[in-house]
């Protein structure tokens, strides 16, 4: 037992003697949280619209002013020519073209129906969908006002109407930051734990110090425990630090129990450290280890449900995600922090992580050899 403590002590001396280490632990999470939380937003604002109003009527102007009044749209270009508007879109100056044809108002009054055309730049499919939804909302709104204007109150009362009222649970203001912060915290902890553990043992191999360690009576379990525990402590500390920043800067809600967050994190970090350790035992240089870690990390992060929801992935990808530890942890973090889930709610993900941690660490320990 004492041997483990001596190794831990040695690791801590080495970690903090590394001049880059303190900035990495304190500054990187701060910057990541500040930049990523603001940058990775899916909300669309300032969608630039080119308007072609061939009708020039009070109705068409009313519709345009509805777009102008929306916080999502800016009318940045007007013209009477389709070609000109399309050229603007090609240049990337506008994201959407609103085309109001000649006779729009007359048809509305005479035939009770009229058409407008909306053309959306769909290079980014997700944002095109959003632009479409926003513009539909505005046009529907316009429609409803028309009804009020043209129909007499008696007629209005007799029209059957389904009134849909929506409320957003767990994130009532649809605040994107609330959704992102738990996920980005997960990434932060993951990156620190994965890279540090992945580089550590392989570093001893590369420098040659492992030769000297291997001829000592240190047992491999002691050696590995002494190697992993410092990073486990650092990663947990990192999570605490990140939570404090999240609370102070973004006032993200932490509805569930902090203990549950840290209990899950404690298990999760073992999974990640085990992964790093495994890579460390299989590679011979820090460069190799770095590349292999990076390969896994990119896949795990992109499939983690941080940016795209797992439910909308194809079924095979969802099955593949069962071996993605980050996905489990992000799910747990979001559930506990935003929904206030208790242990009972997250038990499946939690037990999966426990099994994962045991499996990967035993595999890594088994792989690590003192003798060749």
């Amino acid at each position: 037992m004492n041997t483990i403590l001596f190794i831990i002590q040695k690791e801590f001396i080495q970690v903090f003697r590394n001049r880059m280490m303190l900035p990495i632990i304190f500054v990187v999470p701060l910057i990541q949280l500040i930049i990523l939380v603001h940058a990775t937003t899916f909300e669309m604002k300032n969608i630039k619209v080119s308007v072609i109003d061939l009708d020039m009527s009070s109705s068409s102007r009313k519709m345009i002013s509805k777009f102008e009044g929306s916080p999502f749209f800016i009318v940045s270009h007007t013209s009477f020519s389709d070609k000109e508007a399309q050229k603007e879109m090609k240049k990337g100056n506008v994201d959407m073209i609103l085309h109001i044809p000649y006779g729009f108002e007359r048809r509305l009054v005479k035939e009770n129906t009229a058409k407008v055309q909306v053309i959306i730049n769909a290079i980014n499919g997700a944002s095109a969908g959003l632009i479409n939804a926003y513009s539909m909302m505005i046009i529907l709104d316009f429609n409803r006002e028309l009804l009020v204007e043209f129909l007499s109150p008696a007629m209005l009362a007799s029209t059957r109407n389904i009134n849909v009222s929506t409320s957003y649970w767990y994130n009532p203001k649809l605040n994107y930051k609330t959704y992102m912060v738990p996920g980005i915290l997960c990434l932060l902890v993951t990156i620190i734990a994965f890279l540090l553990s992945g580089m550590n043992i392989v570093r001893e191999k590369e420098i040659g110090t492992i030769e000297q360690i291997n001829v000592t009576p240190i047992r491999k379990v002691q050696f590995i425990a002494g190697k992993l525990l410092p990073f486990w402590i650092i990663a947990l500390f990192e999570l605490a630090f990140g939570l404090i920043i999240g609370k102070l800067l973004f006032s993200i809600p932490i509805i569930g129990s902090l203990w549950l967050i840290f209990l899950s994190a404690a298990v999760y970090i073992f999974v990640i450290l085990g992964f790093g350790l495994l890579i460390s035992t299989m590679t011979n240089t820090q460069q190799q280890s770095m590349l292999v870690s990076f390969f896994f990390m990119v896949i795990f992060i992109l499939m983690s449900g941080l940016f795209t929801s797992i439910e909308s992935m194809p079924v095979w990808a969802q099955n593949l995600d069962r071996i993605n530890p980050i996905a489990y942890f992000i799910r747990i973090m979001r559930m506990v922090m935003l929904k206030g889930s208790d242990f009972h709610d997250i038990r499946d993900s939690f037990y999966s992580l426990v099994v994962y941690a045991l499996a990967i660490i035993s595999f890594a320990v088994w792989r690590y050899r003192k003798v060749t």
Partner: protein
Amino acid sequence: MENPSIIVRNISRSYGSVKALDDISFEILKGELFGFIGPDGAGKTTLFRILATLLLPDEGTASVEGLDVVKDFKKIRKILGYMPGRFSLYMDLSVEENLSFYATIFGTTIEENYNLIKDIYRQIEPFKKRKAGQLSGGMKQKLALCCALIHKPAVIFLDEPTTGVDAVSRMEFWEMLRRLKESNITIMVSTPYMDEASLCDRVALIQDGKIMKISKPDEIVADYRHELWAVRSGRFFELLSDLRAYPGIHSVHAFGQAAHVAFDKSGMTAEDLRKYLINNRHKDVVIEEIKPTIEDCFMELMSSEK
């Protein structure tokens, strides 16, 4: 005193198709300072790694202090000090931190075995707060030796401890090894420098994974069968080829500024050789009779092996 500390029987080890060790057997006595002399790639490091329980032999058995290197590796690691050829202490830890780390993982303290290392440690103690990575080559080796000795091992293996170290530090290092003998520690050391061989109790000449000869340094020299001259002249490169062309000469090797010429006792005189060289347009020819060194013996053994 005369019981063996290290016994190696028919050890072989290959890396792929390369045979690094080929059926090696020897014994080292307790408290002996035993040297392995051989060129790079001779198999010295492989042998050291097998005895240090870091590498498994393909064939054969070996024991250290009566413990088998394969079965009892855990016990061996407690009584063994190993200094790999490459500096392998923590560069980012200070001298003192390195030493106390190695002391603690062996369950001891610096104070407990200070006596054993004090002669060596005293020389680096002024720098004990300095990081190991900032020490000079000689000081690094002294620190590594301290770390290998801190748990009072029964046996120490030093793999090329003086490679890349200046001449003064090398001599100091060997003096330390001689002094360690007094503590009855068995020392097995390897070196590519022939001049260090004479400082060992016994040496093994090793090449291409085979031991060519094991004996006391003075016996190896005494066994040298040829006469030996050192020959110098102004045109060194041509000197070597001219000497090789001279009939009756057994071998010619370059030793620094001189060519060592070995020949059998056949009535060859220095005068004849001098005339021959002057005829071949050599100037300032100097010929002197010399005693063979270990290096001469090694060269001789090497060429007779081939």
